[in-house]
């Protein structure tokens, strides 16, 4: 980059930073996400609200399990095919890659990694969770389709662990999203994670892993807790 380019870039940045300083205060929505009117190429004026145009802001609803043997069969299928979202939040995410190696091999238990929240039904919160990550975790959790399970890994998710007095990491995960299985330890070894999957399977087969409905039922409480610490709430209340 030549000096001239850099200077023009600097002045551009300066203008942006001044605009930001003017806009800052208590507003966290980026300018491009604000509700506004846009002139279309044909001259008509369109109202856009990007945050709500791209995502459904509707409240989640409780979804009743199906009847009898159908639900039992589906629960068995869900238990035998756990698709884990590949999202590492803390130091525990280093315990997940060994699970696909020959030594631990989680595939034989029907557990696989899935790259997108739309296709996964289990979410491993691997270790400490900073507020910044929690915001992403909430978005991701809400995008997962309904029978969804959360495994909380490590003592950080239970009581804050060794980061209990940190200004940026949460102490108790179950105040923000519902947790099905806790795996204690700092860090738990991959075997413990496999045992956690076993426990989760038992819960699903027994029909007890209905935490997604619990989230919908206590939605206001969870949202209040989330909004208490996520101060720059610039997303819909419920993001699909």
């Amino acid at each position, binding site marked *: 980059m030549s000096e001239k380019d850099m200077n023009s870039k600097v002045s551009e940045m300066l203008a942006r930073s001044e605009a930001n300083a003017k806009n800052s205060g208590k507003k966290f929505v980026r300018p491009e996400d604000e509700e506004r009117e846009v002139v279309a190429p044909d001259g008509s004026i369109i109202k856009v609200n990007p945050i709500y145009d791209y995502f459904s802001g509707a409240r989640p609803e409780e979804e009743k399990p199906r009847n009898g043997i159908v639900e039992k069969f589906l629960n068995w299928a869900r238990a035998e095919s756990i698709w884990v979202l590949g999202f590492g939040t803390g130091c525990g995410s280093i315990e997940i890659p060994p699970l696909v*190696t020959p030594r631990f091999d989680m595939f*034989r238990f029907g557990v696989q990694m899935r790259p997108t929240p739309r296709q996964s039904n289990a979410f491993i919160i691997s270790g400490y969770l900073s507020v910044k990550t929690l915001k992403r975790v909430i978005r991701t959790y809400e995008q997962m389709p309904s029978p969804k399970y959360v495994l909380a890994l490590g003592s950080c998710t239970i009581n804050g662990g060794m980061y209990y007095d940190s200004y940026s990491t949460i102490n108790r995960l179950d105040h923000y999203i519902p947790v099905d299985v806790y795996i204690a330890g700092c860090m738990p070894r991959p075997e413990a994670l496999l045992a956690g999957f076993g426990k989760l399977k038992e819960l699903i087969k027994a029909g007890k892993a209905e935490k997604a409905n619990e989230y919908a039922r206590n939605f206001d409480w969870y949202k209040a807790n989330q909004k208490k610490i996520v101060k720059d709430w610039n997303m819909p209340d419920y993001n*699909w």
Partner: protein
Amino acid sequence: MTIAKLGYTLLGLFIVWNWGFLMGAIFRKIGARVSGRIGIPFYQPWINFFKSVGVRTTITHGVMYYLGPVFRLTGGIGLLFFMPLIYTGDPNGMWTNFSFEGDLILILYFQLFGMLGMAMGAGEGGHPYSAMGIARGLAQHAAVELPLTLAILSIAIQYDTFSMYKIVEAQQGGFQNWVLFTNPFAAGAIILAMLGAMGHSPFNLVKAPNEILIGPATEYEGTYLGFMQSAGSILHVMEAVLFMNLVFGGATSWPELIVKTFLIYFWSVFVGMVFPRYKIEQSITWFFKVPLVLGVLAIIVFSF
């Protein structure tokens, strides 16, 4: 007669669907054993399918998003409907499905149909990685189609027909009559182009796990995903059947079909186990080198 034929075709569809799932599981199992793992149980794809169908919340992004998997499934079923599965000596026989004079052109079209449907569905899904995946997919498919179409035209010239049934019929009576030996240039082009059509490594940049999430299917979930898995398994088997009919003399019984499709499928799996993923420009230039030259040679040899 037609009703009975439809019944046999649907039965064939069911068998092909299950065989596709099993073949996918075997592929995963081989991959696991190559890397020293135990791997998934062989019935895992069925569980995945039922789990996907049993998901409670589904979202939709619009009509085209909904039609994406439907188009893909239509592509697979269309391939099956108009392609003879088993050669029985009777052109209206029970496993020839709805094969007719000139079905080869329709089959070539159906091969691309699913990809086009996915392009529209993924486009409406709106995920940037879907758009990237489908753009790469269409680019690579265009590169695959060129040698494949040249080779198929060469076979059509060789046997003077566009009927799949007649091509299979002409190859009966011993392996020396297979296109593999009577028209080696076309066979070579098809066998190489097949790697791209199957979409395994090294030509799996369309899905490219770990890089662009899962490609076109990024936004799909639940029932959509279940049907896309079904469509994928049907397409895999049917493409193997297509190449079996074109090059390896068709099949005269179900066991023969199973063995041949497995070996054809295994060829792409084997290559995938050995070679890492190509970038899109590498894969396109690869198809424009040896396979294209073989295809052109096949045309030249049988045109004069």
